[in-house]
């Protein structure tokens, strides 16, 4: 596909189990792991699996959802504007929205949970709580959802439909999603070790939310290229030849010529995807260090693209990127950075994410 035209990044922020972007970045630099072993079905028990919940909240859904206060505190840091008005569009992305409320309803029968259970009910409720107007577009493409929000917001700006756009993303885990990944056997009692060449793979799951304010003119950072690709090969596996990774990274490589890069990969901790991803990234961007932060934060699902964008911005501002917390040698590629490193010599970072169905997304972030 053609790379989207560049767009300015005016502001970005995030929320993880390690706090806001500044706190999360600094705690990742210290090698902290947010994940801890918790029962997979919350109050109903089950195997202890690595989960990272934000702000000490419980996994079991409440009515209203117990993550609202945290989303509001994140929203308070968004540059003020008439968000959701005709020329200030909001693009909301998530994989799960409030579906944990449907799980809670089915287990308890409490009707109050139904008010948040569908994507539109959840987003309408959030828009009211956060004071947005009705110009809210909602996208849901599993773990590349946030990337699609960035891409569509960029196109909206370039079409002259708005000078500024907000991409807002969130995914708070619940037994609905922990139970699903546990059933797939990739969420188990092991902690994730992204890109590590070991006998058994595993992921962790974590809460995540983030925002990005895109502008045609303002901002020290630039999203210089964006790319998406959908293999449609298998629901939970990639093509064995890695062609899907290469197809997505190709347009980003073209835009990154002559840049000195570092790479923020998807790196959940699954083996085959980790092997294919690290191989494709290393082949496309030889010599660039590769990190994943999901060994600490867990996989924040549909929010990960913007959560990790905010952490990449913080890394560039601070001049140091956290290493691949939770992983250890041997790794699939010598490019995997296990320790933190200076970003001073780099003038760009490629951020990549993957999702069910062999979906791929990537962008190039540069700094003036």
């Amino acid at each position: 596909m053609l790379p989207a035209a560049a767009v300015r990044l005016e502001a970005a922020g995030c929320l993880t189990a390690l706090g806001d972007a500044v706190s999360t970045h600094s705690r990742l630099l210290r090698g902290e792991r947010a994940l801890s072993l918790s029962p997979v079905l919350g109050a109903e028990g089950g195997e202890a699996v690595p989960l990272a919940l934000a702000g000490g909240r419980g996994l079991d859904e409440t009515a209203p959802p117990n993550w609202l206060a945290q989303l509001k505190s994140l929203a308070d840091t968004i540059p003020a504007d008439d968000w959701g008005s005709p020329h200030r569009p909001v693009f909301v992305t998530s994989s799960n929205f409030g579906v944990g409320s449907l799980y809670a309803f089915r287990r308890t029968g409490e009707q109050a949970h139904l008010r948040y259970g569908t994507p539109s009910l959840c987003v309408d409720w959030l828009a009211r709580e956060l004071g947005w107007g009705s110009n809210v577009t909602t996208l849901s493409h599993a773990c590349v959802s946030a990337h699609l929000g960035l891409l569509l917001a960029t196109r909206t700006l370039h079409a002259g439909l708005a000078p500024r756009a907000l991409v807002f993303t969130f995914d708070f885990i619940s037994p609905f999603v922990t139970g699903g990944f546990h059933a797939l056997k990739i969420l188990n009692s092991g902690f994730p070790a992204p890109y590590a060449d070991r006998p058994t793979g595993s992921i962790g799951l974590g809460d995540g939310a983030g925002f990005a304010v895109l502008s045609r003119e303002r901002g020290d950072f630039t999203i210089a290229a964006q790319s998406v690709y959908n293999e449609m090969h298998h629901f939970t596996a990639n093509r064995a030849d890695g062609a899907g990774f290469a197809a997505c990274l190709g347009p980003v490589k073209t835009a990154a010529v002559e840049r000195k890069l570092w790479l923020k990969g998807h790196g959940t901790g699954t083996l085959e995807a980790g092997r294919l991803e690290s191989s494709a990234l290393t082949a496309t961007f030889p010599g660039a260090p590769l990190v994943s932060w999901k060994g600490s934060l867990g996989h924040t699902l549909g929010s990960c693209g913007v959560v990790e964008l905010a952490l990449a911005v913080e890394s560039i501002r601070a001049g140091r990127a956290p290493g691949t917390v939770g992983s250890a040698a041997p790794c699939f590629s010598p490019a995997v950075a296990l320790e933190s490193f200076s970003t001073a010599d780099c003038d760009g970072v490629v951020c990549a994410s993957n999702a069910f169905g062999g979906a791929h997304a990537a962008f190039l972030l540069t700094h003036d």
Partner: protein
Amino acid sequence: MIERYLQALSLADPGDEDPAVTRDRLRERFPKGATRRMTQLGLLVGAALDDLKPRADDAIVYATGYGESRALEAYLDSFPGASPTLFQTSIHPSAVQQAMITRQHAVGEFFPMTGRGNLVAQAIQTALLSPAPRVLVCGGEERGTWLLENGVASARTFALAFALSAEPAGALARIALQPVEANPEEISLEAFFDVLARREPLNRIVGQGARLTLDWS
């Protein structure tokens, strides 16, 4: 104003047809053995997309408010022994992925969208902003059971798909969006399906303040 031409259209309105009947009826439209685990919405959207003969350089925009309601119901009822298959099948973009994966048909852009009264306008705007030479817009709903009884699933099963391109020759219709300063009216996906089925023209302020026009040839 941004505009495209509607080059092909496929609609499915199966009424209260049982999902098993839909599966039998559409079995020949998919590779052998592929329909066993497909949802009713996946079957209907997949058949509608197939009518448009998808190409590798197409972009796909998918609109649904509720998605895979039956799979979601069954997944929720599978706890505490959660079903991995139903978990995968219940995710939002599943209907299109079911169809495209059975055919091993890769695509570049795929925008799965959701919403209510502004969903149609937003999906069309997303399609019109795509640089792809042809954009396949598809969508639909499937009738729920216990989720419907609780007001959180569609009461009607339907699917739609149409192809948009910049080529006017042979077009069935012209579709355009023009930003305007006026109060919008909502239009549901179901109402838009009926507009397409009746080949009615459309000229109304929708979404976040844009005039949506649909003029049939």
